Structure formats: C-alpha cells, structure tokens
C-alpha cells in the first residue's frame, strides 16, 4: 500500500524530502496558506545576513516534518495509534503559523503597552489615566483560530475530511485536553526547526543542532511526556546553548534589533495616523469576511507604506524613519549595557543607571544634542535564559514543583532510566548556567558620524 504521507514530496534544504498527504497538499494550495510565502520568518535579519529572508511557508513545512519524526517516537512506544489523531497533529503543525502578522510580533503587539496603560493611572496625577478605550490586535493564535473557523478555503477542506477546524485551532493553542501539545514544550517541534533553518539561512553556525540524533533518541513516558535517552544529553545541551548564541548573534544583533525598533516606531505612527487597521475588531472583521484583504495582509502590507514615505523628501518623522529602512541606513548605536546575571542577581549599577537616564533624561539629551527626541530610541531586549524556568527560579529550590511548571523543560533519562529535568542534572552544563541575559540599547536614527559622536559624549557625561 502506498504511504499516504508521500502523496507529494517537497525538497527542503534542512530536512531533505518532506512527504505530504493529499489533504496536506490541498491545504498548502489554498490562498490562505500561500500567504505564508510573503511573511519573512526572520523579519529584518536579512538587513545584516542577506540570505536570511526565508518564509514562514518553508518553516511550516519543516515543522510538519519534525512533528512526523516525533509522532514516530510516540508510535514506537505504542502511543498515537489512531491515524486520525496523527492526521490532526500533522495538520496543526503545518498550520501553526497561519495567523502571523506582517513582520510578526512587531505588529502583533504594537498596541499592547497602550492597552495595559488603560488600567493604570499615574500616582501624582489627578487624571484617571487614558480615557481612550484601546482594542489591541488579537494575538496570532487567536487570529489563527479565526482563519481556521471563518475563512472558507481551509475550513471547507478540513470539514470535507471530517476534521473540525476548531479542534486544529485548539491543538495549535495547546488547549487540547487529550492529544499531546507538541508545539508547547522546550523540546518543541517549532524550535527544533527554526534553530537549524535560521542557522543555515544566516550562515551563523551556532544553531546547527544535531536534529537527527535528538529525534532518534526521543522516548515517550506513559503520560505522554517526551524525554530524551541519556546518550542524547549532549545534543540537548547543545540545543539550549545554541538557542542562547542565536539570540546573541542573530535575534538581538545590534543592527537587526535597531532596525526592528525603527519599524516598531513606524507602525506606531501609522496606527496613530489611521493608515493601518486601527483596532483588534477591524483585524478580526478583515480576517472573518473571507475577502482578498487578508491575503494582502503580509510583510508587503507594511512595505508599501515604508516605500511610500521613504520616497518623500521632507523632514517629517515618518519620512526619516521609513528612509532608514528603505535605504538601509542603520540606526547608530549610541550606548549599550549587557548584563549576564546569575540567578537572583541584581542588574549592574551601569545597567540601572543607564535605564534611569533613558527614562528621565532622554528629552534633555536630545535638546542638548540638537536632535529630535523621537529620533533617539531606546529599548531593552526580552530577558533570555537557557531554560524556560531557570532564569527566574531554581526549580530545586522551589517546593513541590508540579507537572504544570516543568512541562516546558527538557527532560533526559538518567543512567537508571529515570527521567529528570536537564537543568537539575548535576552532570549537565545547563545545571551550572542559570543565567539571564539583559541588554539595553540607545540608538539615534538618521544621524551622521559627527552627530553620533556628539550624542555619545552627551550620554556618557550622564552615566
């Protein structure tokens, strides 16, 4: 009998042949899935690493392939014997990124700070905070649920095969109470694919983890927990350390991060000026109405504004910001503080001082340096650690840690075959790396070398 998952074969530079079923091929051929070709997985990394422009389309196929390898491990352990369950897990992996926004998280969370502010008021002010009601964009998983349950193309193909679209959405969101959440673990299929794919496409070697060895050494416990055989411990350590290096070298690269911050400001201005979808409600309507509008909602949706404003010849803020992107004029890094904190460690004095200076003195720095304050942009990177829980808490120091809290940690069998958390294994390097990376940076946009030096002097004088 012909293997139903080899109806079509796609050649992939990371995994080689990726087999697809007839149903998966139909899903891939829908306009909604084809939209993923126009979403770059790595955002603005291609401004630094020219080949880093691969799409979420390619990544989604890779995640499907990795999922299949994990399913194989379940089946070797006499679990997931139901073909329909396998079909659903594969489809959820294939469709896991279907709800992503243009430039992904940059746009998705653009209004989150303003939304949070709706609940707060300043202590020394009589004002009750913002009176504006903020309706933030739905998160990409919620957008994904709407796409699966409202848009006809994917929904009808699934229903025709007796698969409930809402169930696939639940699997993507990790809300399925019976099937294992393959997308929501430290050793998750999403991460395994993107680390290697990012590494291959940037040319940065740190993410080249030993996928085959990891996937060949998966074992499944009775309660559907994924663990690694002890001999694959080094591969798991490599995966976690690789991720840390990839953050340093690619995701938080000073120029990539600077460009992304410029784009964030551009999106905020476009939102303020009513040029883009103004609320979560509008986005939800646009997705649900089943028109071409959603198909055009990809990176190009923002690129067209960047091109339009970047071509102007005036000194409006939006023009300057868009020109920086369009003509690849990287924002100049004025100052940066990097802390690598041990567990429970306090940020360095240098870090605290710089952060306080950014919060209180930015306008003054701009005035003294004769630059518009909006062109001075500062931001902290999200904190990054080696394991999901370790940056914040040593799990061995917390009483009665439960399944909920360790589900996202990588587990490895010890020499007696008992699964333990890698971070708790005293023979593992990860055990000795409960570190958190914190980075804070200030950039200036649209300045020449002379102005950059002037601002640097102004900032240094305050630290």
């Amino acid at each position, binding site marked *: 009998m012909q293997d139903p998952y080899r109806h079509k074969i796609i050649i992939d530079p990371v995994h080689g042949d990726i087999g697809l079923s007839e149903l998966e091929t139909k899903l891939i051929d829908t306009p909604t899935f084809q939209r993923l070709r126009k979403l770059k997985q790595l955002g603005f990394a291609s401004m630094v690493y020219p080949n880093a422009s691969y799409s979420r389309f390619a990544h989604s196929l890779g995640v499907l392939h990795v999922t299949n390898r994990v399913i194989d491990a379940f089946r070797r352990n006499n679990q997931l014997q139901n073909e329909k369950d396998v079909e659903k897990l594969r489809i959820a992996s294939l469709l896991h990124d279907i709800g992503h926004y243009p430039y992904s998280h940059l746009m998705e969370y653009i209004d*989150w*700070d303003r*939304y*949070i*502010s709706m*609940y*707060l*008021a*300043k*202590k*020394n002010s009589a004002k*009750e*905070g913002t009176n504006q009601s903020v309706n933030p964009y739905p*998160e990409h*998983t919620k957008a994904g*649920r*709407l796409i699966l*349950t409202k848009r006809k193309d994917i929904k009808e193909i699934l229903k025709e095969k007796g698969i409930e679209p*809402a*169930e696939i*959405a*639940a*699997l993507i*969101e*990790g*809300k*399925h*109470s*019976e099937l294992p*959440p393959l997308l*929501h673990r430290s050793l998750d299929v999403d991460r395994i694919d993107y680390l290697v794919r990012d590494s291959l496409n940037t040319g940065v070697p740190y993410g080249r983890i030993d996928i085959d060895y990891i996937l060949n050494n998966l074992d499944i416990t009775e309660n559907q927990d994924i663990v690694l055989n002890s001999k694959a411990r080094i591969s798991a350590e490599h995966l976690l350390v690789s991720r840390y290096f990839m953050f340093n070298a690619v995701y938080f690269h000073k120029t990539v991060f600077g460009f992304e911050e410029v784009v964030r400001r551009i999106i905020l201005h476009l939102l303020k000026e009513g040029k883009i979808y103004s609320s979560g409600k509008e986005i939800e309507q646009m997705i649900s109405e089943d028109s071409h509008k959603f198909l055009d909602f990809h990176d190009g949706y923002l690129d067209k504004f960047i091109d339009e404003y970047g071509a102007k010849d005036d000194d409006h803020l939006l023009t300057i910001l868009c020109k920086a992107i369009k003509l690849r004029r990287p924002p100049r890094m004025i100052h940066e503080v990097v802390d690598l904190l041990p567990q*429970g*460690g*306090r*940020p360095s004095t240098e870090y*605290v001082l710089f952060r306080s200076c950014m919060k209180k003195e930015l306008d003054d720095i701009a005035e003294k340096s004769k630059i518009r304050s909006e062109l001075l942009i500062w931001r902290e990177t999200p*904190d990054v650690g080696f394991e*999901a*829980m370790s*940056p*914040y*808490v040593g799990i061995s120091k*917390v*009483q*009665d*840690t*439960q*399944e*909920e*809290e360790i*589900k*996202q940690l990588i587990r490895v069998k010890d020499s007696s075959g008992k699964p333990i958390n890698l971070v708790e294994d005293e023979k593992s390097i990860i055990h000795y790396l409960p570190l958190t990376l914190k980075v804070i940076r200030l950039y200036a946009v649209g300045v020449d070398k002379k102005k950059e030096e002037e601002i640097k002097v102004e900032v240094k004088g305050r630290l």
Partner: protein
Amino acid sequence: MNKGRILLKLILDEIDLGKLELDTFSKRLNLQKRIYLLQLTGIDLGYRYNWYLRGPYCPSLTQDAFLLEEEISAGEEDYEEYKLNSRTKKKLGKAKEIWKAPNAPSIEAGSWVELLASLHYLKHIAWPRSVSKEDIFKKLVKAKPKFADKNQLIEKAWNRLGKFGLINNKLCGE
C-alpha cells in the same frame, strides 16, 4: 519592569497576593487561578492558559511572578509611580465577588478558585468541549477525583459562574 508586570504587581497588591509568596505550589496555584478568574472580568493581562491535571495553568504567569519578585528584590520600584484607576478597581471588586468562598459547605480557598476556574475552562476553552452541564461535571471529577463527592460544591461553583454571566450556552469561535 515592563508595564505588564507593573500592572500585575498592582493587581496582586490589591488582591492580597502582593507579597509574592511563591515558595509552595499551592500558593502559586492560588495566584494562577485568581488571575484566570480576574481575566474573565475583562482585564486581559495577556496570560493564556493550557489544561493540566490541576486545571488551567499558564507557565508564563509563573515566570512573570518570579521575575517580578526578582525585580523587586533588585530594587526596581517602577510600580511605585502608578496606581490602579477606578475602572480597574471596580473590575477587581467584581473578581473578588466571583471567588468569594461560599458559607457552606466549607472549602479551602485555593480549592474553591481551582473549582471555579476549572469549570469555566472545561465549558468554554478546552477541547473537546462538553456541551451539557452533566458532561462537564463528569469531566471535572474524572480529572480531579478530589471533587468526586462534592456535588453540592460543584453545583454552587457552577451557579456562581452563571450569576456573573460566565456560563454561556452558545459556544463562540466555532
């Protein structure tokens, strides 16, 4: 401290969890369930819950709570510049009414919020979704045998959720 964690800290202060006692799982579970119920009043803090043995749980909330604890012990005081506005306090008042423990039968506060949050999750969030009340009760007891002989309490919790408009018989997102 980002704005999200500033808001979390001020809310935890308001619901008497501001000391961030996170050393035992039951304390962390209590925080989890209260924030789950609080979000049902319309204050969306961005925490998304998955289903585990003890009901809905959000790993990123635990991480944020520990991070908050570290930030405060490192001397960060950004939250001191802010207060909750009156609209937020009103919603918090509603949340407190939702999880106020019943007079009888008696139940430990942590188990009561666990019961409320789990019933809501099973009814509205988890897949596969049970449609009838009886099915949800059965599912709850299967997942949490400690409630097996507590029918009266389960019924009370269900009615409490209903009283605050949190049981909707029309499923959304389908």
